[in-house]
């Protein structure tokens, strides 16, 4: 991880941007810009957390680790939120593994400072609780999606959630990695990705997936994507969907 030297673009994180300027001004000194590389594990299941992260361009995947080592993604955090809910919820440790799914930047804050600022109450506290609710909705929706929807639909949902949190249409991502995220065999991902490519929705090249037809992807996705997106809209008062979705 690289620590960067200017934090003028912390407002690239929508939670932070939703703060009144006075509240943002108070926490700004505690925000440290960092650069996060693809595949880096920010923390492992059970690790005590030292920092919370507010991604601006990076995307973090939260994986639940089963007893036999298999992994399933339970949610993603990008510029829509904060990584480290366990800190202010009183857990201290998390059962999830946080891994960088898409390289980029974030701002981090030490646990001590986060707890202090959270404890003051006010807008920062309220926003973090509301974000927690949006995140609960995301993981609940993932549960029912995992149970009921086809791999193709789940891949659409996953691509849309990632695309919303990216600054470009191109996802640097292998089928192998997606297979770990979705808890589906790689062959299943490749098949689903080929189908989406065949429909002209994405461009599948080695190691990258490019979103070609955003609206088409939204139509092909299950309703789970909309549920999660609507919840963030409730939270932030505006949609974070690219092109405002449909």
């Amino acid at each position, binding site marked *: 991880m690289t620590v960067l030297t200017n934090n003028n673009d912390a407002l690239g994180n929508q939670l932070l941007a939703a703060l009144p300027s006075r509240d943002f001004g108070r926490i700004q000194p505690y925000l440290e810009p960092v650069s996060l590389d693809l595949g880096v594990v920010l923390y492992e299941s059970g690790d005590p957390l030292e920092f919370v992260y507010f991604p601006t361009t990076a995307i973090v995947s939260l994986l*639940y680790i089963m007893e036999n080592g298999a992994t*399933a993604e339970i949610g993603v955090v990008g510029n829509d939120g904060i990584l480290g*809910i366990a800190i202010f919820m009183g857990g201290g440790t998390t059962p999830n593994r946080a891994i960088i799914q898409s390289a980029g930047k974030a701002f981090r804050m030490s646990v001590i400072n986060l707890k202090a600022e959270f404890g003051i109450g006010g807008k920062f506290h309220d926003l973090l609780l509301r974000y*927690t*609710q949006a995140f*609960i909705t995301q993981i609940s929706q993932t549960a029912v999606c995992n149970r009921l929807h086809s791999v193709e639909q789940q891949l659409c949902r996953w691509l849309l959630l990632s695309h919303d949190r990216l600054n470009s249409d191109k996802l640097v991502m292998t089928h192998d990695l997606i297979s770990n995220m979705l808890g589906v065999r790689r062959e299943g991902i490749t098949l689903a990705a080929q189908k989406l490519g065949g429909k002209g929705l994405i461009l599948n090249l080695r190691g990258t997936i490019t979103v070609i037809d955003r609206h088409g992807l939204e139509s092909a996705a299950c309703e*789970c994507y909309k549920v999660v997106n609507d919840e963030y809209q409730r939270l932030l008062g505006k949609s974070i969907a690219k092109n405002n979705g449909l």
Partner: protein
Amino acid sequence: MSDYLRPKNLLLAELTTSSFRRLVPKFDQVELYYNHNLFKPGDRIRHVYFPESGIVSLLSAVGINATVEVGIVGNEGMIGIPVFLGLKTSNLLAVVQGAGTSLRMTAANLIKECASSDELPKILRRFTHSLMTQISQSTACNRFHPIDTRLARWLLMTQDLMKSSEFQITQEFLTNMLGVRREAVNKAANSFQQRDLISYSRGNLLILDRPGIEAAACSCYRAIADQKDVD
């Protein structure tokens, strides 16, 4: 009404005696009727519930008819967490899975209480965290585990929380919990009957062979049970 000095709900039991006493006038005690919806997705949450006995199932929904259980809450928790987190409506379906009684408070009073002192919010934050862990577990379970192991897990959790080896259950209920078609539920339940793990007739289910069911359950049971013990 319950014994005020020792509330049966474990979250309320963490409050100091004087704090709880101060809250008592704001509670009413209600029956939890089997299969009764406390609130549905999109509903405004008017009351939060602190169960004393019985259990409430939280289901995530897709469309109208397709659901999957993502959490079970008994007297170790509160139903209505979105209110605590600052929102007015629910995304989940909260349905009574095991009859019992509950203390109930209006959403407005909960908000008022949480604004006046950090004692209850601190307790609710910790519960929220454990609920999130449970939901995450369900998410992963629904990804990987076949219906038999999930049914076994569900039976164990229900028995633990109801503190009884006999409980009411309908096939429709099981279908909604497990998020599978009726035929699949029948097949799994029949298989359990044939193996003398359970006996099921006319809406009543009896657990016959607890160790046998534990052997059949997926690892998620142990993970969730431990999580509830920690609280």
